Structures are given as C-alpha cells and as structure tokens.
C-alpha cells in the first residue's frame, strides 16, 4: 500500500478516535443542564469525564498535527478556508476547558452557573461545527487552481453541511447520554438512560438522512456499506439502551460514530478536499501529500507510539471504571482548600 493511503487511513483513525472519545464528553457537556438538576448531580456529570476529557482532546491536536505533516496542502487549505468556523471552535474549546477547571474553584452558585453555561455552549458549538466542517469536506468547496478556498463563510452553511452539523450534535449528545447511563448510578443513571432512548430515535433519523444524502451525492460502494453498518449499530445501540443494557448501548453508539466517520472518509478517498469549481483543482492524497521520506519517518513514529498511547489511555479508563454516585461527591462546599475551613480537612485531594 502506498504511504499516502496509509496516512489517509491514519488520519481517518485519528478523527474516529477524536469523535468517539470527545464525542461523549461533548455530549455530557450538552446534557449538563438537562440531566444535572442539582449541584451535586452536575458535579457527578462533570466528574465522569474529569480525568479523561483533556486526553480526549489531544486526539484533535494530533489529528491536526498529522494532517500538517502528512498532507500540508490539505492542512493549509482547510484551516485557512474554514477560518471563521475554526475560530468559533477554538473559542468554544477554550471556554469549555477553562470552565471544567475553574467552575469548582469558587463556592458561589452564580459563579458555577456561568461556567455551566460555558460548558454547555463550549460543548454544543464544536459538536455541531465539526459536522458542518466534515459535511463541507465531503461535499467539496470552491477551490481555485492554487488550492485556495475562494468561497465565503456563508457558502459553508449549505443545507447538506448543516444537516451534517445536526447529525454530529445529535450523535454526540446521544453518545453522552449512553455514556452517563453507563458511568453513573441512581437518579442520574435513570434519567440518562431514558433520555438516550428518546435521543436515539432522533439521532437515527438525522444520521440516516445525512448518510443517505452523502451516498446520493457521491455514491461509493464501500461508503454505502459502512453507512448502513453505522445505521445498524446505532439502531442496535438504541435498542440496547431501551433494554437497559448500558454497556452494549455504549458499544452501539461508539461503533456508529466510528463507522459513520470511516464511511465519510471512504467516500472521500482518494480526494481529501474536492473542488466544486473544477475537478483539476481538487486536493487528493497525491497532490496534497508530504514527501515519501517524511511519511516514512512519521509512519515509524506512529507505529511505535500509538500502541503505547492506546495502552495508557485505556488504562486510565480502567482505573476510573467505577460508576459514580451522588454520594461519592463530597458535600463540602467548593474550595479554596485552605487551612481555615473545616471543609478542606475533609476534602484532602486535589
């Protein structure tokens, strides 16, 4: 296999990993005001993703870096062309990351409420915009002969791409609900489980619509088969959620997200960013790629590092595998964990 094909595949895998992992923590963020009715419940929600969200986000950083290294032209065109959507995503991710860290740091309901809005918006906006971005990538955009994006921001908000955005938002929110049902207990678990079933039907509808539209637009046999498999996994996941088989429900939504992402990449291949102006202007794995030498080095690095990363990231999930209950969250008020307050004595950890 050509190295350019290998790297197209690896970048697809990185996006799969990103959507699979950050997908549920976006979902938890979106559901924070819906499922978390009390302060302690909200803390349960946030703490289900507490140890892992940052590691999940690194998948995006690596996907970006790998695109830069393996397909510089793709990276340059995509990032400069999608300037305003990416700006919005960056702003959302900044607010969201800071919100997780800072919301518990001052004991004030108003303070926490503001950061909760930050978590909600900071999760919903990228969950939506990544779908819009991928919709545009698959659909193609206006590229001139220099591979520069010459469309406008409004061009990116076409109906197909917007449906893509709604699809990722729905899928990630569902994935988050299923994850919460798996990782919590008591009231939160019950509410998340019930919500997952209702969300599941909506997600099935929009995702089915989006994937069908994709295949109608750019018919591709592999892509079609994978899309069908994604839809089947999603249906299976929702069914499992209905039967309260929470582990299987999570497997179902995880598989649906991965399969749908792979379906989009398979449909795209060998192009990486089609041009709607002229086929000759399209970016492909060939005209966008780095040199074979760079790709070879990167392949060795990836071959050695990726298994190690997967092992320790997997281990994190194992360490924090236990379900969280409201009782696990200390009643104590938020810190500062100074010497003065009694609460701090009962709350030793960081």
């Amino acid at each position, binding site marked *: 296999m050509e190295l350019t094909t290998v790297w197209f595949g690896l970048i697809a895998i990185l996006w799969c990993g990103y959507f699979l992992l950050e997908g549920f923590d976006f979902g938890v963020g979106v559901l924070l005001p819906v499922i978390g009715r009390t302060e302690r419940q909200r803390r349960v929600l946030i703490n289900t993703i507490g140890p892992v969200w940052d590691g999940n986000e690194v998948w995006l950083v690596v996907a970006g870096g790998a695109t*830069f290294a393996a397909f510089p032209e793709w*990276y340059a065109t995509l990032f400069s062309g999608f300037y305003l959507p990416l700006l919005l995503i960056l702003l959302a991710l900044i607010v969201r990351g800071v919100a*997780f860290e800072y*919301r518990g740091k001052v004991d004030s309901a108003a303070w926490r409420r503001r950061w909760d809005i930050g978590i909600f918006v900071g999760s919903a906006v990228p969950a939506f915009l990544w779908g819009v971005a991928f919709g545009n990538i698959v659909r193609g955009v206006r590229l001139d002969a220099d591979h520069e994006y010459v469309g406008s921001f*409004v061009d990116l908000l076409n109906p197909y791409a917007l449906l893509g955005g709604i699809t990722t938002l729905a899928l990630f929110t569902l994935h988050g609900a299923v994850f919460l049902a798996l990782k919590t207990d008591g009231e939160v678990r019950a509410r998340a489980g019930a919500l997952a079933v209702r969300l599941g039907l909506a997600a099935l509808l929009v995702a089915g619509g989006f994937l069908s539209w994709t295949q109608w637009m750019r018919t591709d046999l592999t892509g079609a088969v994978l899309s069908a498999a994604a839809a089947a996994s999603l249906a299976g996941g929702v069914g499992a959620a209905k039967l309260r088989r929470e582990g299987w429900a999570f497997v179902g939504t995880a598989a649906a997200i991965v399969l749908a992402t792979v379906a989009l990449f398979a449909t795209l291949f060998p192009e990486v960013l089609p041009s709607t102006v002229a086929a000759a202007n399209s970016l492909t794995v060939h005209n966008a790629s780095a040199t074979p030498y760079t790709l070879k080095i990167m392949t060795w690095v990836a071959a050695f590092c990726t298994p190690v990363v997967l092992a*320790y990231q997997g281990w994190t999930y194992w360490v924090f595998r236990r379900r969280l209950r409201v*009782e696990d969250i200390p009643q104590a008020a938020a*810190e500062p964990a100074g010497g003065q307050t009694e609460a701090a004595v009962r709350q030793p*950890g960081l």
Partner: protein
Amino acid sequence: MTCPFRDLWPLRGGGEITRLGDVDALDLARWQFAVTTLYHFIFVPITIGLSALVAVLQTVWLRTGKSEYLRATKFFGKLFLINFAMGVVTGIVQEFQFGMNWSNYSRFVGDIFGAPLAIEGLLAFFLESTFLGLWMFGWERLPRRVHLACIWLVAIGTQLSAYFILAANAWMQHPVGYRINAERGRAELTDFVAVLTNSTALVAYAHTFMACFVTAGAFMLAVAGWHLRRRNQPEVFRPALRLAGWVVLVAGLGVVVTGDLQARVMTDQQPMKMAAAEALYSTTDGASFSLFTVGSLDGHEELFSIRVPKLLSLMATTSPDGRVEGVDNLQAAYAAQLGPGDYRPLIPVTYWSFRLMIGFGVLAMLVAALTLWHARRERPRLARWVWPAAIWAVALPLLANSTGWIFTEMGRQPWTVFGVLKTADSVSPEVGVADVALSLGVFTVLYGILAVIELLLMVRYVRAGAPEEEQRPAEDGVDRPLAFAY
C-alpha cells in the same frame, strides 16, 4: 450595494480584501501570532518548571514521610492545575493558527515543520494530559508510587513537548536537512536527524529549559514569601522557599551559560540578529556592549550611552577583539546576494528586547539571592522590602521570557524561515483583513478576561494557604467519597 459589511465579508467569496486603509491582513496576522504566542508562553514555562518542582516535593514526601511536603505538594499542585488549564486551551490555538493565518507558510514548510508538531502531540501531549488526569483524580485510587510516577510522567511530557516545538522553531531560525523543490514550490525534508539535532535547537532548548525553572522557581518563591512574611505555615513554606530560591539561582546561572552559547550560535547563523541586538551599524573589531543608549537608534546617532568595552565581541566570538558585523554591512551583503530589499529587523525593538530580557533575568536572580540570605535570619529592618521584592519578582522571569521571544522572533525578520521564506510571503492570501481583525479582537478580549479570572483564582488559592495536617491517604482501595478537583 455599497454596504461596507458586504465588502468585508463578501457573500460570494474570493478576491478577499486584505488591505483596508493602513491596515493590512499581514500586520494583523502578525499581531495575532504575537499576542496569542506571548500569552500562551506565560503559562508554558510555569507548567514545565512547576510540574517538576511538584514532583520533587511529592518525592520528598514519599521518601521522608514528612507531612509538610505532602501539604506543599497539594498546595502547589493546585496552583499548577489552575495554570495548566490555561496552557492547554491556549495551546490548541497555536497549532491551528499556522494553517488558519499562515497557509502559504504551511504549504511551504509542512513537509518539515509538520512532523515535529505531530510528534509533539503523539509523544508529549498524550502523556501530559493522560497522566495529569490520573494524578489529579488518582490520589485515593492509585498505589502511592504509581501516583508519584504519574506526576513525573507529566513533567517528562512537558520536556518532550518543549524539545519538539523548539526544534520546529529552530528550523525557522536556521533551516537544515532540507532542499527546495522548485517545481512544487516548497521545502522538503532530506534529513530528519539533522532537524532534531540542529545546533540552534539544542542551545534554544537548553536556554528555555533553564528559563522555565527560573520562572517556576520565582513563582514558588513569591508564593512562599507571601506566607512567610505573614508568618503563616512556616513548616510548609520555609522549605519551599529554600527549594525555590536555589532553583532560581542555579537555573539562572544555567540561563546565563546557555544564553552565552546561544549568542555565539546566533552570531554564526544569523549575524543580522546579533548586530540588531546591539544596534551595531558598522562592522567593528573589539565591539563594546551598550547597557543603555539614548539616541536615534535608526539614525545611527548616539546622544548618550553607557558602554562596556569589548563585551559584545566577547559574547559574539569569545575573543575580546573579535569582529562583529554591523547592520549596514550585512544589509549591503544580503542585498547583493539576494536582490534588493530591506533585510533589517526593527532595530529599536531588537535592541531593547535583548537588554530587557537580560535585565529582568539578572534582577530575578538578585532578588532570589537576597531572599535566600534574608530567610536564613530575618532582619526586621530589611523585611519590609525584601518580602515585597520576592513577591513582585514573580513578574521578572515572565517579562524576561516575553522579551526573549520578542527578540528572537523580531530579530529574524523579515524572514519566517531565515534566508528562505519571507514573512510577507507566508500569510494566508485568501483570509481577509476583516476576518483577521475579528479573530485578533476576539482572542485579545477573551484572553484578557481569562487573565483576570486566572489571576483572581491564583491569588485566592495562594491566600488560602496549604491544607492542614491530615492522615495519610489510605491505599486500601475501599470506596469512599472521592476527592475531586471539579
């Protein structure tokens, strides 16, 4: 339809307006890169240095069993986390920005520059973020030694990250291991080992490594000084102060030594930058170093100057009588070699940023030495100003870091890749002035707000002091309310 909004954000796209009056998309993109990078680099050195210092504190606790060290670990660990969050979220902007605002640069250098960035993510960011999560949430869940290993892995991750990003930057200062492919119009990697062992990268890493410890040491010194001044928890803060003071002194010495090495490498590779650092216009043997100059810097006229004879030649060439090339001579040589053009950086900026960097750094070391001396036996008459000096000195290394980066990046101008690609040719051609103005504005405002919040939180948690004595956390794995950060 003459609505200006329509022109700035054209609905049809294409032919983007990149200049509006005196405002140019290129200038705004440069400002944005400067603002976001300098801001990011407030948090980065603290993260790099403090992760290792917290790891040291925790290691001492495990070895000695003294609870003061556990309390210090938790106290400084919390400050570390508040700082880390900002470093992470502002870091993603950096990676995206190359493509967003500098697409021509990305196309041109991606084959070389992308690899260290990708490797940084794969090798360093995963390590840092995953093990930081384990460390934060693992206090009661992991065996003690494993838990300690987590913070050390975070510290190692920050070092790896620093190395790869500096290797990428060093390639811009001194490109090696590449060839130009004229047909594709880009630079292509021919020797990755050369890129990673670039002498510029090695000295820059050493210099930055030391500077990070000065920064984190000064931070810890200020915090400990604040409490000791109030005779608060001396059992925790006295050892912390000693550790911090010595770290600043030793690492400060390291900064001087590595800076000296770097100056020589720079003179060799980027003579214009060295000349611009001194505002030395004509090639001179046995050049002096001016500590302070009043005059028209660009007009070659000097009104007043305090000079150390022969110091510049010594710094640049190791010989007091060595020859240092001047700006005007270099400009003429470059123009002859590369064609007409202005190859000079903004001399006032390079001149002052170079001096301020050195000045702030030296001042930080002096304050640390004074504080250490004073802490051995307090002298009541000195206490009134030694402690405030120690506290305010937290800003000195941060200012030195910023001016250092301003110097090294501005001194490379007009190039992004020295001698190969100009800054003016690096910018995204189809990103309009309105888009960049918007992003620059939004980043500046958001970063400003976050800076205020971060500062308030820091002050709040510094004031709260270290947690009181507690029984050692159990290792039995029995479920109990979790001690969470969120």
